[in-house]
C-alpha cells in the first residue's frame, strides 16, 4: 500500500482516493485553521466552499477534495494565512492577445447529466463540441463516477452515468478537464485555465450546464470539521469508497439524504439517525404522493423503497425535525435535532451530513447578463429560457440545475433539447423525433419534480437558528451578531453590507453566504429578491492562481 505524508504522519492511500478522502479515512478531518484559529475541514466536497485547503508539496491553497492522492506527496495543514512559494523570476508580461485561442462550434460548460447529454446530442448532429469540467472525472453530481481503481460501479445510477460518459468519449466530443472556467465576458468570449495554462475560447454557441451546490445551514457549530454536506459525504463514498467516520448522522430536507444514508449504511457506516425537515408521509401530502406515483411510478417506488430500506436497517428516521446545533463533545460531535413542538433529540456522531437543498450555480449565466427571476416556491433564481433552452442572451443556452433545480432526468432531457437546437443553429440537421421525445420526457420529469417538492415541503429557517456567534459567512468568519450590527444603521444595500462586513468577499466568492444574505435583506428590509439582489457576479468565477491566468505557454 502506498502513502503520503501529512503533518509527519504516514497516510495510506487506496486507489481513487482524493487527498480529502485518504485523510478522512485516517481520521484527519481538520485540514486547516482559519484567521481566527478555528479548525476547518471538508464542507461542500465539490470545489465550491474552499474550506478544505491544504498545502501540497509547498503549494498552498489546494482543495483537498479535488486533488488526487499520490504516493510521496507532502501535505500540510494550513495555518492562516498560507505561505507563497519563493521564486525569483516571473513570466514575461503578456497581453490577452498572447493566449491561445480555441474556437469550438459549441462550448458546453459542465459535465453532469445536462452537459453530457447536450454535448452528445450536439455531436451526434455533427457539431464540433468542446466540453469543460472542473473535475477530472465527468459525470457531475448525479452521475458521479467511481474514481479509477476504486472499484466497479455501485449501482444503476453509476452504470447509467458510466454509459453516458463512455458514449460522450466515443462520440468525439473534446473534453478539457479538470479545467476552471473563470471568465465569461460575452457569448463568444470565455477564459479557462487548464493544466496551468489559460485559453481564450470563442465559441459560436454555448450551453451552460453548471449544476448546483448545496445550501449552507447556519446553526451553531455548522463549521466544525466533520460537519459536511450530504453531497460531500456522498462523493467520498461514491467516488473514493471512503467513509469519513464510523458513526454518521444525516440531516436535511429531500430524498437525497435518504438515499445517501442507505448508501453509506450499505457501505458499512453506522447511521445513528436520519433527520428530515418535512412532515413525512401523512394525509397532507397524500395528494402529492399520488401525483408522484402517476408521473414517475418507478422513481416513486424507489422513494418508498428508500424509507423502507432505512427501516429495514433499523435506522431511526425522524420526520419534521431539523438540526439546530452541533457541539464538539469529548467523544464526538453532539447534534441537537428539534421537532415542530420544540422538543429536542440529542444524537452523537463522528461526522454529520447536512443536505438542506441546493442553490443553482448560475454565476456564468448571470455574468453574461442572462435574465433571471426569483422563484418563490424554489426559493432561488431561475434562468429565463425559451422552450429550446436558450437564455435571453442569444446563442447562450442553459440546462439543468444551474437554471433552477429540476433534477438529473430533467437535466438530461434539457441537455438533449439544447444540444440538438444549438447544432441546428449551425446548419446541422435537426432530429425532430428525438427532440419531440425529449420534450415529452421533460414534461413528465418536471411533473415528478413538482410533486416531489410538495412532498418534501418544509419551512425555511433563514438565519433564525443562528446564535449571536454563529457564522453567517464561513469564509470571512462573519457572525450573526456582526451582521446585525452592520444592519443596525440605515438599511444598507447588499453591496454596502458586503463592504461593512466582508460577507461575500471570501474564497467561495459569496456562493455560500450570498443567497442567505439576499433572503435576510428581503425579510428584514423588504428588498426585492430579483437578480439584482445578489452580489454582482464578476471574474474570476473561481479562484485561480495568478501565474496560471497569465500563462500562455506550455505547462509548467
Amino acid at each position, binding site marked *: 500500500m502506498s502513502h503520503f505524508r501529512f503533518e509527519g504522519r504516514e497516510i495510506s492511500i487506496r486507489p481513487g482516493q482524493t487527498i480529502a478522502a485518504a485523510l478522512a479515512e485516517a481520521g484527519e478531518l481538520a485540514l486547516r485553521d482559519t*484567521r481566527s484559529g478555528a479548525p476547518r475541514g471538508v464542507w461542500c466536497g465539490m470545489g465550491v466552499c474552499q474550506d478544505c485547503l491544504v498545502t501540497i508539496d509547498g*503549494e*498552498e*491553497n489546494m482543495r483537498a477534495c479535488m486533488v488526487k492522492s499520490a504516493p510521496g506527496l507532502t501535505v500540510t495543514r494550513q495555518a*492562516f*494565512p*498560507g*505561505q*507563497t*512559494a*519563493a*521564486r*525569483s*523570476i*516571473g*513570466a*514575461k*508580461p*503578456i*497581453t*490577452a492577445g498572447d*493566449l491561445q485561442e480555441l474556437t469550438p462550434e459549441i462550448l458546453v460548460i459542465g459535465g453532469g447529466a445536462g452537459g453530457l447529454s447536450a454535448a452528445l446530442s450536439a455531436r451526434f448532429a455533427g457539431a464540433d463540441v468542446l466540453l469543460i469540467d472542473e473535475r477530472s472525472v465527468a459525470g457531475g453530481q448525479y452521475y458521479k463516477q467511481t474514481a479509477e481503481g476504486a472499484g466497479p460501479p455501485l449501482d444503476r445510477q453509476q452504470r447509467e452515468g458510466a454509459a453516458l460518459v463512455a458514449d460522450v468519449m466515443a462520440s468525439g466530443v473534446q473534453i478539457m478537464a479538470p479545467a476552471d472556467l473563470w*471568465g465569461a*465576458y460575452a457569448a463568444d*468570449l470565455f*477564459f479557462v485555465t487548464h493544466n496551468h495554462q*489559460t485559453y481564450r475560447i470563442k465559441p459560436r454557441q454555448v450551453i451552460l450546464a453548471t449544476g448546483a451546490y448545496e445550501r449552507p445551514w447556519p446553526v451553531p457549530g455548522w463549521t466544525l470539521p466533520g460537519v459536511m454536506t450530504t453531497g460531500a459525504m456522498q462523493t467520498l463514498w461514491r467516488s473514493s469508497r471512503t467513509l469519513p467516520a464510523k458513526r454518521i448522522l444525516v440531516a436535511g430536507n429531500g430524498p437525497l439524504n435518504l438515499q445517501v444514508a442507505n448508501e453509506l449504511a450499505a457501505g458499512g457506516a453506522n447511521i445513528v439517525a436520519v433527520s428530515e425537515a418535512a412532515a413525512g408521509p401523512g394525509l397532507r401530502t397524500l395528494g402529492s404522493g399520488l401525483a408522484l406515483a402517476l408521473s414517475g411510478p418507478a422513481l416513486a417506488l424507489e422513494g418508498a423503497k428508500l424509507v423502507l430500506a432505512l427501516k429495514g436497517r433499523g435506522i431511526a428516521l425522524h420526520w419534521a425535525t431539523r438540526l439546530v446545533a452541533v457541539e464538539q463533545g469529548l467523544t464526538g460531535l453532539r447534534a441537537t435535532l428539534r421537532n415542530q413542538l420544540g422538543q429536542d433529540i440529542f444524537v452523537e456522531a463522528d461526522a454529520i451530513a447536512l443536505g438542506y437543498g441546493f442553490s443553482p450555480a448560475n454565476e456564468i449565466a448571470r455574468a453574461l*447578463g442572462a435574465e433571471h427571476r426569483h422563484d418563490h416556491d424554489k426559493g432561488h433564481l431561475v434562468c429565463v429560457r425559451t422552450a429550446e433552452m436558450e437564455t435571453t442572451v442569444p446563442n447562450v443556452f442553459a440546462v439543468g440545475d444551474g437554471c433552477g433545480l429540476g433534477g438529473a432526468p430533467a437535466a438530461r432531457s434539457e441537455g438533449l433539447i439544447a444540444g440538438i437546437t444549438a447544432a441546428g443553429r449551425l446548419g446541422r440537421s435537426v432530429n425532430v423525433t428525438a427532440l419531440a421525445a425529449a420534450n415529452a420526457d421533460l414534461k413528465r420529469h418536471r411533473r415528478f419534480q413538482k410533486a416531489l417538492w410538495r412532498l418534501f415541503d418544509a419551512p425555511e429557517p433563514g438565519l433564525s437558528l443562528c446564535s449571536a456567534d454563529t457564522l453567517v459567512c464561513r469564509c470571512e468568519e462573519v457572525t450573526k451578531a456582526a451582521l446585525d450590527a452592520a444592519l443596525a*444603521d*440605515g*438599511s*444598507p*444595500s447588499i*453591496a*454596502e453590507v458586503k*463592504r*461593512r462586513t*466582508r460577507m461575500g*468577499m*471570501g*474564497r467561495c*466568492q459569496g456562493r455560500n453566504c450570498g443567497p442567505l444574505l439576499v433572503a435576510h435583506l428581503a425579510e428584514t428590509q423588504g428588498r426585492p429578491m430579483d437578480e439584482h439582489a445578489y452580489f*454582482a457576479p*464578476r*471574474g*474570476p468565477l473561481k*479562484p*485561480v*492562481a*495568478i*501565474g496560471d*491566468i*497569465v500563462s500562455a505557454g506550455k505547462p509548467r
Partner: protein
Amino acid sequence: MSLPSDIDVVVIGGGIVGLSTARALSTDGRGVLVIDEGRNAGTNANAGSLHVQMQSRFLRMYPDQIGNLEYSLPLYPRAVGAWQQLARDLKADFELKISGGLMVAEDAAQFAFLKEKAERERALGLDVHMLERNELMAIAPYLGDAIYGAELCVTEGKLNPLLANSALRRAVLAQGVVIATETIVSALEQRDAGYLVSTSRGQVRCKTLVLAAGAGTGALSAHLSVVIPTVAEPLHMNVTEATSPLILHLVQHADRMITLKQLGAGQVVIGGGWPARFEGPQAFPTVEPDSLIGNLSLAQHVVPRLSRLRLIRTWAGVNTTCDGQCVLGALPGHANAFVAVPGDAGYTLGPLVGDMAAAIIAGRDPGFDVRPFSASRFA
C-alpha cells in the same frame, strides 16, 4: 427614510470627500445632511494607496498637466498627515501604514527618468531617494530579477479603505450628521439666499450647498449653470486571497501601469489604472478581461511570488478625472454654494480636501492657496 425639510448644509456626495467635509462642518456646529446615490463611488472601489510622489501614469498620460501636478504636490504629504490625524481622532485601526512607496525601474533609462523626477520632487519638499538594485533588494527582497532599481518615497503608504470608510461613516453618524443613501438628486435651485434640493425621497431646503459628488459633480453643477468637466473613468482592480506578509511597500512602476500592495489582513491588492468600461442601460462599471490579464501579468513580473497566489475578486470602480487638480472653493456666481472634488489620487487627498472645504465655508484659511482650484477656470 424621509429627509429633513430644512437643514443648514446639504452635502451631495457621500464619498471620502463628502463625509470628511460633513464631519468637519458638523464639528463646527452645523446641521448636515449628506445625500448619496449609492452607486459608483470611487471611495468604495479604490485601492487604498496613499500616493505622494508623482504617479508615472499621470505624467505619461497627461504631460500637459505636469505643471498642475507640481503645484499640488505639497498637498500630498499633508494629505497623508490628515489621514494619520483622522486615525487618531477616530481611534480607529484601519490598517494605515506609512510603509514607504517604491516606484521600480527595469532598466537604466527608466531609472534615469525616475532620477530626474525625484530631483524635481525633492525641490518641492518630498522625502524621496534613489535606490540601486542591491540597496533595493535589502529592503524589498520580494521584487523580481527584472527590477533594476527604484525611487523610494518615504511618506507613502496604504490603508484598508473598507475599514476607513466604515470608521468615518460611524463617526459622522455619531456626530449627528444625517446620511441619506440610495437617494437621487433630480434638481437644484437657488431659493431665498439658500437652495432647494429635489430628490427621489422628497425636497430639502438648505442655507449652504456643497457639491462633493466626485465624477457626478459636473452634472450637478450644470443644474446651476456652472461648468465643471468631471469625467467618470472606470478603472480595474484585483485582489488575491490572503497570504503571509510578503509585500511591505506600496509598489509602482516607472513605465507601466501598476500599483501593488498587501493589506494588513494579508490580501494583495493589484491595480494601477487599467481601464474598465461602462455596460448596459445602468452604465454599470464592468471589468475588461484584457485589463485583468495585463495587470496581473505585470504584477507577477514585478513580484514573482504572486504567481502561485490565487486571484479571488476583480471589480471596476469609477474614478473622477478633471485636469489633475482639485476643484475646490466657492461655486462661481452662487452665494453659499461650494464644490469639493479632489485632484489626482483623490482618496489620498480626501480627508484633507474635506477639511479645507469646511475651512473655506467657515471663512477660515484653508492653509493653502486654493485660488488656482476655483471652478472659474472652466468658465
